[in-house]
């Protein structure tokens, strides 16, 4: 079943004493907008959690889908090779990769330079039909390919897929404070380290946390792109479920306590939409109840649409032709 509506959504989540998304450029400090002090969580960080969640709840056995079956494998996952997955698309469809291409692989193998040039050449090989078939197969088998899309034109050509779901960076509602904690450990990893410390065997480490922060991310689902990838209503439900529960399965020493605090979905009657997304987003206000007070829990925040709070599952008419539903 394909989608017949446009959706815009707002994801609200919080973090307590954890690091929601480390910045590799800043020694893994929580990402920070240096000018305003607001915290950031990248789109790819959120997508990774959606993928991990779907990878957990859905069968990940590596097999080809039978005719008409939609599978929920995850393409960009841990311990996977992208090209190898592409190859499976070809094997499953019994599309012989052009024989001359194979020969080329063999001859160019030793030349490291050729590695760089070859994908570009290969990209243009393979007939349009084969590419379309492979792309379709990939969408049918992989949840994240039909949701977020994928560039699969590397090596063996599967073409490009633009996914219907578009996510933005999440930004904290208020400026965050990034704390740095020094921690100690009572053991060392190597003999050398022990010798250096003359058997003291104590080293120090560092941990960064945000004491408390509420973040908001925006997202969009295009039904037109959904049709191209076969993203259907059941996939959308799974996406909502994933966004609601993804933090529950992403516990780690670094994350602290993270939780989805709200998922507000605007459903437009028409596929093109019935109202500008920004106009809808602006009316959903996430704000501290007492400005200026130090917040250490979600209680300190209020979420209101046009000044009115929504219970989970509640639905209101947001604009002519636009329904707002609080999914979780």
């Amino acid at each position: 079943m394909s989608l017949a509506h446009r959706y815009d959504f707002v994801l609200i989540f919080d973090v307590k004493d954890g690091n929601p998304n480390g910045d590799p450029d800043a020694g893994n400090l929580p990402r920070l907008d240096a000018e305003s002090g607001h915290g950031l969580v990248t789109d790819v960080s959120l997508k990774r959690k959606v993928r991990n969640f779907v990878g957990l709840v859905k069968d990940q056995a590596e097999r080809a889908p039978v005719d008409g079956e939609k599978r929920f494998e995850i393409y960009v996952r841990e311990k996977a090779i992208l090209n190898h997955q592409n190859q499976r698309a070809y094997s499953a469809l019994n599309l012989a990769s052009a024989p001359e291409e194979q020969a080329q692989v063999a001859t160019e193998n030793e030349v490291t330079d050729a590695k760089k040039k070859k994908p570009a050449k290969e990209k243009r090989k393979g007939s349009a039909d084969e590419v379309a078939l492979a792309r379709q197969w990939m969408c049918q088998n992989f949840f994240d390919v039909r949701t977020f899309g994928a560039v699969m034109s590397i090596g063996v050509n599967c073409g490009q897929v633009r996914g219907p779901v578009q996510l933005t960076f999440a930004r904290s509602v208020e400026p965050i404070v990034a704390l740095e904690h020094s921690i100690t450990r009572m053991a060392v990893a190597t003999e050398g380290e022990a010798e250096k410390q003359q058997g003291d065997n104590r080293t120090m480490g560092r941990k960064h946390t945000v004491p408390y922060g509420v973040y908001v991310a925006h997202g969009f689902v295009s039904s037109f792109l959904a049709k191209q990838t076969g993203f259907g209503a059941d996939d959308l439900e799974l996406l909502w479920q994933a966004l609601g529960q993804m933090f529950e399965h992403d516990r780690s020493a670094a994350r602290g306590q993270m939780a989805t605090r709200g998922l507000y979905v605007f459903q437009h009657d028409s596929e093109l939409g019935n109202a500008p997304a920004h106009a809808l987003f602006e009316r959903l206000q996430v704000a501290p109840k007492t400005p200026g007070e130090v917040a250490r829990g979600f209680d300190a925040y209020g979420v209101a649409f046009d000044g009115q709070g929504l219970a989970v599952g509640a639905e209101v008419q947001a604009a002519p032709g636009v329904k707002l539903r609080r999914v979780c």
Partner: protein
Amino acid sequence: MSPRFCLEVAGPFACFTRPEMKVERVSYDVMTPSAARAVFESILWKPAIRWRVQRIEVLKPIRFINLRRNEVSAVVSTRNVQQAMAAGSGTLGLTIEDERQQRAGYFLRDVAYRIHADLSLAPGCAEPLMKYTEMFTRRASKGQCVNQPYLGCREFAADFRLVTADAPPATPIPDTRELGWMLHDLDFTRPADPQPRFFNAMMERGVVQVPPFEEARG
């Protein structure tokens, strides 16, 4: 004369990647004509019509932010693929963590533009232009779009608003500067191998005039 439309687009971030620095993405100072065209096309596009970006007005000061993300490098050993091909399926030898690449991005922040573009019919199209101008006006004024427009990369979604002829004029930033050679658009006459074309961009009091694509240099 072909009808001209103006959209105001804004967003917290943007990245109009310079092609010469695309590994670690560095954005142009100003939205490129090709990115502006894509915004119009995300609202309305048919094979029968062409969008030509005429002018870009910069409404907010040009500011940057630096962000580094984990990305996938995925240059896969051809030998492994060969083995997988021979076997029909294969065991996996590498992890995605090993295929990791940390890439910094130098993105624009808090941007707002007014983009002006002409709508014209593709050569050989017999349909009335009015049909498409009406369609576009209807969609853009209601906030409708085929997919949410974005500012260079999909994670930088754009708010958009149709600016009608009777709307008050924008106040571009007072900066005047040479922006240097900037990507105009890609030439898709050979779809398998699109070629970029550049123009010498000049921002005068916040306004970049975009020359016709034919005048841009390959």
